[in-house]
Structures are given as C-alpha cells and as structure tokens.
C-alpha cells in the first residue's frame, strides 16, 4: 500500500485502505513523541511553507512542530501580516511563496476549495489545513487515530457529532473518513446548526439528524464535540444559556452513551458552555491525546508528501490548470522517471 496523491486536500477521495495506511504510518511518529530527543533529520534541508490565511493557533503550531521534528525548516505567513490585506490575490500570494522554493505548502483559508485551487497551480505538494466549511483532513485523521488507539478499531461505531455542524469542516472530514469504515452518524444541535444536506454528503453512510441531546447520545461509541463558533455566526444564533440548557455535554447526559464511549473535541473548548469541566477532564475524554496525535499525524503527512519527492516534476512554468493535468496524465502513461539503482545489503 502507498499514498497515491501528491497533495492532501480532502479525505473524501481517499479509500479506506489509504486511510489505514496513513494511520499506520503515524504510529512510528507517535513513538517519537515519547523519545527524550524528538528531532529527526529526515527532512533536513527541506522547507515547509505554512500559509494561514485564517487565524489558527493549534493547527499552525502542530504543523510547525511536526515540520521541525522532522528536521525541516518552516516559513510562516499569517493572516494579519499578509499582503492579502494589501489587495494581493490568493494565487499571487501562493506564487510568491512558491518562488522562495519551499518543498511543501500547508495552507488554511476561509474559502472552501482554496487549497484545491492553489494545488492546481503549484508544482509542490499542498496540504489542506482547513478550507472554509469544506474539510480539515489532518483533524479527521488525528481523530481517527485517537479512536483507533483507544478502541482498537474504527469500524462500525456509532458516532455522535454534537454542536455547530453547519460551519464545521471537522464534521465533514470525520464523516468522510469514519463513514468509509462503516460507522453510523447521529448529528445533533440546534436546528439551524444542523443542515439537512449533511445527511447526503457521504452516500452509503447512515447519517441522521436529531435535535434532542439525550436521544443523540443513546448507544454512542464516540462523541465528537464541536466548538460553538461565535465568530462564524452570521444570522441565526442561540443564547449561551439556551445552549447550555439544551446541548451541553455533562456527566448526567454522558451516562446515556455506552459506558466506554469516548469524548473528542478539536479545541479550543468553551468550558462550561458546550462541555462541563468534569467531562472534559474525565476518563472518557481524549482531548489531550488528540493534540499529541495531531503532531504525529502531521509528521506522517509531511513525511509521505515531502521525503519521497523526486526531482521529476515538470517545471512550475505552466500555471494553467488543464496543462498541469495533461502533464500529469502524460507522466502516468508513458514517461516513467529514471529508476534509481538501488544498493542492496546496505
């Protein structure tokens, strides 16, 4: 098994086998988190560009840590300081970053599809660190790794996703990933936060929406909490008190789930709003394991996309989408790169 894409833009197009491969490849990096010396030289001399057009603390630090533990250097572009504020287009910013010759671009953007769009125009691997309300693939992977470690499997689980689903790329990545392994989903939140069309995003995956938390938690193996995204509320809103009353996950409500149900939260948590401190810090909570696993998953992603990268890619001089794809096709069909003679017994 291997990973056949040059980028990591979404989990939806990946097969279950490819996802299992990505999770398996994260294991050695989980081990490295436990070493007294955590720095490798595997990507020494490589540069990872981190472009966060939307604010992020945890994901950016996690990718930054992953890159530096692999021995790579990073370039950082952040929303406030970027020339986007001065009117530069996304593509121009990407071309300018690329002109500094990084070996990989990790980007977060407030528009759905932004990473995909940039990837079509660049010759380096692009990792989507969250694009609008579309996907957040590394979060989906780290959640799956956390569940697999605790439960031993990610197959055929009852997964409840709780909170603001309408704005959540985390929910979408979770559904696409766990859905490939036969998991069943219950989505729950205030009606205006649980869009009907979510039930259709992964054909073949059973997804239902309920509006009562007690019902949603019944028989759950995994509960994925979503943050109440105050900065994204444009129209319909709900008061904090109403939310606490109707949807807060507390110890009493958690009893309705299976006794060994896991509680995940992508962070940052609003303690006392969507989750009570005793649940957040309780034995069923995995929130800090998620953070640790995040670094491991991102090391695996960067390792797979950057370490094996060979100098066989066409020049970056043709930034037109259809040319780019035509070249890819030509490459696949009849232009195998020079094989490198392998020295055995080394």
């Amino acid at each position, binding site marked *: *098994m*291997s*990973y*056949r*894409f*040059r*980028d990591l*833009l*979404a989990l*939806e*197009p990946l097969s279950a086998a490819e996802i299992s491969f990505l999770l398996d*490849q994260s*294991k*050695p990096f989980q*081990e*490295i988190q436990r*070493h*007294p*010396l*955590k720095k*490798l*030289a*595997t990507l020494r001399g490589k540069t990872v560009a981190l472009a966060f057009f939307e604010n992020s603390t945890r994901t950016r630090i996690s990718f930054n840590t992953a890159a530096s533990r692999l021995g790579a250097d990073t370039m950082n572009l952040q929303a406030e300081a970027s020339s986007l504020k001065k009117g530069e287009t996304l593509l121009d910013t990407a071309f300018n970053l690329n002109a500094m010759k990084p070996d990989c671009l990790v980007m977060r953007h407030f528009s*759905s*599809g932004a990473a*995909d769009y940039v*990837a*079509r125009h660049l010759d380096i691997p692009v990792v989507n660190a969250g694009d*609008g*309300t*579309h996907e957040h693939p590394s979060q989906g992977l780290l959640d799956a790794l956390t569940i697999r470690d605790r439960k031993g499997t990610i197959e055929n689980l009852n997964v409840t996703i709780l909170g603001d689903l*309408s704005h959540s790329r985390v929910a979408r990545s979770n559904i696409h990933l766990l859905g490939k392994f036969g998991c069943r989903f219950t989505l729950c939140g205030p009606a205006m936060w649980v*869009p009907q*069309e*979510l039930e*259709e*995003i992964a054909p073949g995956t059973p997804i239902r929406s309920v509006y009562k938390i007690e019902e949603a938690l019944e028989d759950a193996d995994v509960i994925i909490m979503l943050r109440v995204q105050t900065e994204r509320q444009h129209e319909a809103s709900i008061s904090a008190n109403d939310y606490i009353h109707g949807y807060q996950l507390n110890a009493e409500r958690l009893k309705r789930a299976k006794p060994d149900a896991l509680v995940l939260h992508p962070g940052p948590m609003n303690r006392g709003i969507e989750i009570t401190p005793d649940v957040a810090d309780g034995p069923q909570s995995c929130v800090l394991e998620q953070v640790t696993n995040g670094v491991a998953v991102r090391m*695996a992603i960067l*390792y797979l996309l950057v*370490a*094996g*990268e*060979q100098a066989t*890619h066409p020049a970056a001089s043709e930034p037109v*989408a259809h040319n*780019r*794809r035509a070249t*890819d096709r030509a*490459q*696949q069909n009849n*232009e*195998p*790169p020079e*094989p*490198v003679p*392998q*020295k*055995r*017994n*080394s």
Partner: protein
Amino acid sequence: MALKFSNSASARFTGALMLEFRPMRIVEKRQLMSAAEIDRTLQRVAHEIVEKSGGTKHLALIGIRRRGVPLAKRIAQAMRGIDGVDVPVGTLDITLYRDDLSKVAPQAVLQSSEIPFEVEGMDLVLVDDVLYTGRTIRAAMNGLFDLGRPRRVSLCVLIDRGHREMPIEAQYIGRVVQTSDTEIIEVRLREIDNEERVVLVDRVE
C-alpha cells in the same frame, strides 16, 4: 453549503506508481550457509557476546528491521540457554534515519520501532543480517541515541561482506565473505522467508 469538488479532475498523483526497473536477472551462485550452519553460528556468537560482556547484566539486543529482528530473538534464546537469563530484545526501524531517503523509491514505508526498556547505561548489541556499506548501522546509531545514552554499543552481524563506506566494524561476526559489487547476499530466515539458508546471488543485466 455541502460543497463538492471534482476530485478526479484535480487530484495530482505522485511518481510512485510508475517506477519501473530495468529488467534484471538474479542468478544464484552458491549457498554460503545451511540452516544448521546458521544455527551453530548464532550459538557461537551468543557465547562470544556473553563472554566479552562478562555476563548478561546490563546487556540488551536490538534487532534492525527486518532480518536483524529474528536473529536478535534467536541470539537471546541461545543466551537463555547459557546464562538462564532473559536478555531484553528491541526492534529498530531505521527508515527515518537513512541518509538516502530521497534517492531510493519514493515513500519508504515506515515500521514501528519497539524498544521496551531504557537504553540509558546499557550494553547494547545491534544485530543485523549483512554488514555492507555501514550506512544502515550509522542510521541505527542515530536512532538509538535519540532514546538515551547507552554505556556501550557493539555490532553483531551474520555476514560481513566488506565494501565499507563508513568507519564501522562489527565486534561479533558470523562469517566474513569476499564479494564483488554486483553480488548480493541473501539471508533467508524461516520467520520471514519460509526457508532457512544464506545464498550468494549475482545481478546480470
């Protein structure tokens, strides 16, 4: 809201799929060791290690993936017969520490390293099947020292075939074999290969 992208149109594939190697024939030249010889050699090496280390206290074996792992386990078993003590055995995957990652096939698949003991202050013996350029051992030592500071590290190999590219020597050697550059030594072990012997093969283009 529920956005769909035409992933098939935009997905870019790596070159990994299309690697093709030139046709090459592998010819077996001769057998270097039989199953019984491998067994006797490992027994002898186990005795040497215990003798030189002055017992099995502080001693641990680290098998280098893949074929160093079953070899290390067998040596530990032999030591049990000598000293009646279970010597700890660890497993090391050196992929992340290689100096030629971008030159070999893209996406070298990672395996776990399992070293379930503290290496600090230990007498470690690295175990591998064939010692050739020495690069694997250099990588293994880099990996090892990320775990702590062992008191001593020595090297045990079943076959030393020469052609070193690094200042690395083995302290415990099963057999020294003179080879040419095009020859390959294949150590086949029942745990991995379902047969048990060491053969010398040659590449013919």
